[in-house]
């Protein structure tokens, strides 16, 4: 990729503790604007922890502690007077299991905009339609916008959650194994979606599915538990996805992506 890349999110030397347990040690990696960055690695190595540290979702966990810096457009998101609410609007998130609110499809998507006192029906209609279209769900639900968000299939629910996330026009979207609870067809849909979405958004996706990372991402971060005493997770290699899968520098990465791991 020859063109000049802008760094959207920069993670520098981040360590995370849950109480006395150290989950991450010295993690550094960037995420480039309008690219898809995948985070791969065996389960329990701290992928979710890292992802949730980017939109300060871990603030909800009691005894969570973070060192190092995470910046969004060069601004430290953990700076003392930074507004979490603003950060979370700019950095959206899609979770592992679809978690629509028990309200109508329309209200699910309109939830975010309404927080900002956008009440005009015309504007909301437009936002809902656009978000659902971007999430490739519009055609399937346009006739049942007022049915419960729980009444549609799991794959549709996950795309609804994506629509809900992009309705507030975030700059970055974090996805934590968004397809792990879905069937192959639904998974394919989500993957196709990713290519569309990156035109407008910066995407960071956690996956433990190697092929998926290879298919959807431009960059890949390989995470692993360190061999040291603490057994905490860290990024052992970050590179263009192609390189990670064809010519990794680290032996452990090679073992992992070729399935020789463990």
């Amino acid at each position, binding site marked *: 990729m020859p063109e000049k890349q802008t760094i959207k999110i920069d993670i520098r030397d981040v360590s995370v503790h849950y109480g006395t347990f150290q989950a991450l040690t010295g993690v550094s990696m960037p995420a480039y604007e309008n690219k898809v960055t995948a985070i791969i690695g065996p389960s329990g190595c701290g992928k979710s922890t890292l992802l949730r540290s980017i*939109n300060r*979702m871990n603030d*909800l966990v*009691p005894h969570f502690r973070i060192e190092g810096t995470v910046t969004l457009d060069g601004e430290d998101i953990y700076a003392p007077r930074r507004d979490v*609410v*603003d950060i*979370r*609007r*700019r950095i*959206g*998130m899609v*979770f592992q*299991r679809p*978690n*629509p*609110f*028990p*309200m109508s499809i329309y209200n699910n998507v309109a*939830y*975010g905009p309404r*927080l900002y006192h956008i009440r005009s029906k015309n504007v909301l209609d437009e936002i809902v339609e656009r978000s659902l279209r971007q999430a490739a769900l519009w055609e399937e639900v346009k006739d049942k916008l007022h049915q419960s968000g*729980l009444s549609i299939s799991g794959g549709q629910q996950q795309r609804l*959650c994506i629509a*809900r*996330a992009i309705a*507030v026009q975030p700059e970055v979207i974090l996805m934590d194994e968004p397809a792990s609870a879905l069937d192959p067809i639904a998974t394919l849909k989500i993957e196709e979606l990713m290519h569309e979405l990156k035109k407008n958004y910066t995407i960071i996706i956690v996956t433990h599915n190697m092929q998926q990372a290879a298919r959807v991402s431009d960059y890949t971060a390989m995470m692993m538990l360190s061999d040291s005493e603490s057994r905490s997770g860290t990024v052992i290699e970050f590179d263009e996805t192609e390189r990670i899968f064809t010519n990794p520098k680290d032996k452990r990465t090679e073992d992992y992506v070729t399935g020789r791991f463990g």
Partner: protein
Amino acid sequence: MPVSESLPPHKAQKRTPPALWVALRHGDALWDALLWLSAALTTVLVFWIGWKLWVDSALSRAATGWDFVSPWAPPSWNPVLDKFHAWPAIYGSLVTSLIALLVATPFSIAVAIFLAELAPSRIRQILNYMVEMLAAVPSVVYGLWGIYVFLPLVVVPLGKFLGATLGQVPGLDVFFGGTIPDSGLSRLGASLILVLMITPTIAAVTRDVFQAIPQSQREASLALGATQWETTWRVLIPYGLSGILGAVILGLGRAIGETMAVTMVIGNTTGGGWSILRPGYTMASIIANEFAEAVSGMHTAALVEIGVVLFVITFLLNLFSRYLVWRVNRKVIVR
């Protein structure tokens, strides 16, 4: 594979004793019968109570019919004429319970939000204990404290204030007219005591409702940039609405059935008109206050009939809260 084939031959061939004898020797048949009997008796008990009250109120039901509960029948609670219409007591129960509910509900939900969503874990533990303690204080103690502390210090000043303000507004003066007695014994006093008594109940159940809401709902909202309050107000409360309603119903049941504290602070009179600043009766308090002294069969039967009304109300509230629970469960299964 049939079990017998796997048994060693000598065991399979052994003559099996009659089943009944084995069962009795081991005691399991007896045990099962005992369990069934306990379950059946416990089940029947509550219906026996209802049926007994129904039968024992026959005299009053036959004499008064629907006039007994009718707001339009001429008010009369007269042991001399043996003519009993329960509306004043029913009105007292309704007005005190509804006021109590109106005040206690938002208040309790706020408490529940604090306990479930905000309080740091150490404070939360202590506060939870306190809420349980509040619900455990015997109602006579509430009553005693009510008479000597709460009525003079809180209810009388508040009653005077309401009388001077709302009592002067045409239309509202029906409910806030008259002056509150110096003792404070009044429907207002009963309502406020009930607020204190049902708040812990509603708050504790609502807290449990909040705690049962999946964390993923909170995360979904917060990840969209919602504040904690917006998350609570727009996601958690709608999500738990059935459960919260159930908590409120439970509180209503408590308020209507609460006897001692109310009897001690409401003044116990069948007069009082409509004003909440005046003394009155509730259904429970009229039974508590008059039953032991009722002489005529009609008076007794009328009090028992009030018991029937209380029973029916409890029954309906219970059915309603069952329905709510059923709805909550259905929602959980769909998820």
